[in-house]
């Protein structure tokens, strides 16, 4: 069963629609869009719809001085990650986890055969998929670890 999970194609996962932005969009607009969508990353597109970069909450921490005046007016292209690590839609769940670990990232843009972004796969998507396939191990748990049964009960 684990092998089946590892080879699950990304096209079979419930990938969430990513937040999108243009390179010239300001950081204040992009961060508000991310907050409203409940997402931690945004795909930045070129004028012809191809992937120009990705901006994540991690980039916000690393590259933006939130104490400085006017940071919100900066165009997102100045702080985004250009040429991010990506995956093709034909890749597997195992490929996704391996690539995220190798590059120390938590989400990857997914591209179609024409190199256009069609979604975003995150570590959370992978964990949710695994949990849903093993509900008895990952979903049907006691509220706290301390409440787990340590032996057999009953008559």
């Amino acid at each position, binding site marked *: 069963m*684990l*092998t089946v*999970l*590892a080879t699950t194609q990304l096209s079979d996962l419930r990938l969430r629609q990513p937040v999108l932005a243009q390179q010239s969009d300001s*950081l*204040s607009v992009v*961060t*508000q869009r*991310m*907050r409203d969508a409940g997402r*931690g990353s945004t795909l930045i597109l070129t004028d012809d719809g191809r992937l120009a970069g990705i901006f994540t*909450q*991690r980039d*916000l*921490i*690393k590259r*933006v001085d*939130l*104490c400085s005046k006017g940071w*919100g007016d900066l165009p997102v292209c100045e702080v985004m990650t250009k040429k991010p690590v990506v995956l093709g839609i034909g890749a597997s*769940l*195992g490929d996704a*986890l*391996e690539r*995220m*670990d190798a590059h*120390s990232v*938590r989400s990857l843009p997914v591209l179609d055969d024409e190199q256009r972004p069609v979604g975003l796969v995150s*570590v*959370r998507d*992978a*964990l*949710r*998929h*695994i*949990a849903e396939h*093993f509900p008895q*191990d*990952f*979903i049907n*748990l006691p509220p706290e*670890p301390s409440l787990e049964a340590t032996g057999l009960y009953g008559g």
Partner: protein
Amino acid sequence: MHEIQCSVGAFVTGPVPTVSTTEAVSAAIKIMKESGHAAVIAVDEEGLCQGILTERDVLNRIAAEGINPCSQRVSGIMTRAPLTLNADDCITYAINHMGVRGFSNLPLLDETGRPIGLLGIKDVARHLSGVFADLEQPDTSMTDLPEWIDVGGG
């Protein structure tokens, strides 16, 4: 499933990222930036865990609101009484909290309620990546194969 199971204490490495609840959010951001952690555990004057402040909190409650982190205290935006785990707890709980309930960072506490580590979603992803990679390795443990027995033809 036993291939995935392990104690979360195995992921406790390096200094624990903590910040006082009375410090400015900018101090927490500096710790996240320098340590590489995606969150900081907020502690009181006795070192007890009081909350957690994450990158997502900085995005949603500071940046998107246009608030200056130098003038906002950690206690003002942290998540109080976060879900936590102990070192002996199984990673299945972490996968549940992260994959199903949406938490990306879990403080690990000792029996006194003091932080001993911070489990991030990347730690869990690295573990699963290793488990899946091991599945692809051929089983070379069978060295005592039975002798070939010729039973002849029919």
